[in-house]
């Protein structure tokens, strides 16, 4: 994994956005995300993190500036991007298996019958992902039969099933208990390493950001205030959390978030 910063994979230039009738939420953000790297975006509630993520996803269109993914302008939700929401957002009426395959179903990659080479590839991928997350036994269950942590895993598997080039995540672990959250962080890192995914991960939890990221960006009232490289060794293990460097980085970012705070 060697991030090439000179040619950004996901490129946001001078991006601004205002919801009608409100002060601007995102103001002139420049952000270059390297291919294959894990980027975290931290900031206080209401600082525009989620809006910036939706702009990167193509769910919102910037008032000025632009977003490019692998050299192509993003003007609508891209099939190259996978999105994980704050809550798992699974469909109650589909089995776990069908929930994971939903992106392929909607994009017409899996026909109703179990045939076709592309369909077979997607199904193999879904099976691999469920297996990697320890959910193979739950494939034919329904979402209400799963715990919150398991539902979050299904949401991640769904986002990854079409091999997206970039994974956009909006505080996906915020509602989970601390231990489940740490388990999922490890699983996510392993998955991203095996797929060489580029990730844009929004969180308000500084330790989560430092543990996961190659680079952490700080946002405050719609403006990007800091871009910090995290030079902790990979693969990251639970022990990293208790190292001196880890805590120094957390303290540094915390201080960066306090600068200019009311």
């Amino acid at each position, binding site marked *: 994994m060697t991030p090439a910063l000179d040619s950004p994979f996901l490129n946001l230039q001078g991006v601004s956005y205002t919801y009608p009738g409100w002060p601007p939420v995102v103001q002139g953000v420049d952000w270059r995300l390297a291919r294959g790297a894990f980027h975290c975006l931290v900031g206080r509630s209401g600082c525009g993190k989620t809006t910036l993520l939706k702009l990167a996803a193509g769910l919102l269109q910037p008032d000025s500036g632009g977003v490019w993914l692998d050299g192509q302008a993003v003007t609508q*939700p891209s099939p190259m991007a996978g999105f994980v929401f*704050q809550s798992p957002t699974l*469909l109650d009426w589909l089995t776990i298996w069908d929930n994971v395959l939903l*992106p392929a179903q909607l*994009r017409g990659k899996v026909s109703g019958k179990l045939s076709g080479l592309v369909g077979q590839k997607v199904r193999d991928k879904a099976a691999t992902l469920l297996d990697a997350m320890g959910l193979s036994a739950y494939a034919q269950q329904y*979402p*209400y039969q799963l715990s919150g942590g398991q539902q979050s895993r299904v949401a991640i598997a769904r986002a990854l099933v079409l091999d997206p080039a970039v994974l956009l995540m909006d505080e996906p672990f915020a509602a989970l208990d601390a231990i489940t959250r740490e388990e999922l962080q490890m699983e996510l890192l392993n998955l991203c390493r095996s797929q060489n995914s580029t990730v844009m991960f929004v969180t308000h939890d500084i330790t989560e950001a430092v543990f996961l990221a190659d680079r952490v960006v700080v946002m405050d009232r719609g403006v990007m205030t800091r871009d910090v490289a995290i030079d902790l060794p990979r693969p990251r293990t639970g022990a990293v959390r208790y190292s001196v460097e880890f805590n120094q980085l957390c303290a540094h970012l915390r201080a960066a978030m306090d600068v200019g705070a009311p």
Partner: protein
Amino acid sequence: MKLLQQFPKTVAWVMLLVLLSLWEGCVQWLDFSPLVLPAPSLVVAALWRGLITGYLWPHMAQTALELVLGLGLGCSLGFLGGVVLGESALTRRLLMPYVVTSQVVPKLALVPLFIVWFGFGTTPTVVITALICFFPLLENTMTGLEHVDAQRLELFRMLGASRSQTLWRLKIPACLPGIWAGIRVAVVLALVGAVVGEFVGSSKGLGALIIATQGSMDTPLMFAVLFLITLMGLVTYHITLALERYALRTYVRKGNVE
């Protein structure tokens, strides 16, 4: 109190028996005319006679037929109307005033008009039953489609879903609990529609039979028919509940499903 908590069902049945005995006792003791209030024993006898002679069966079949046809027709059209109004803001703005106005019209008052239009018999009753079932379905489908979770809609946009994919794979399944609540309301109202429709527009069916027993002063049989109508309502309602439970078995309960 303890007895009630331990055997609530037994206590309920015992209470029914006590009430029926009281009714029987009062009628015998006060020497009521069976024309005004027949004793339960007389009602049971009339019911039994009607059932074994086969006199009641065609009437029950007629009412059941109207109920099923009216429910099917009204619910399907109400659902389709709800989808059209829920999906298109323009049609909604255009048609909502008419929908609200026709909601307020007492629909049973239209039975005489329907007899003029459709003649005497099954059709006017089916039409009035369908009309009564139409609105709860329209209302619930439309409201459900407008209130689909915003995050789920974003998920479908993110996955590049077309409008019809979003409608059939997200919006309609998501508002199924509301649609079923509408069907439950429709089932109860449909029976009222069928029976009252028969009062005026038919010579066959349990509603028509009530009018006939009134004419022949056969109050015990009238009570027997009332009992059958109630029974029919209960059976239909519970069948609906069972179907609803099955259809929504994987949905997260939000406390509104019994």
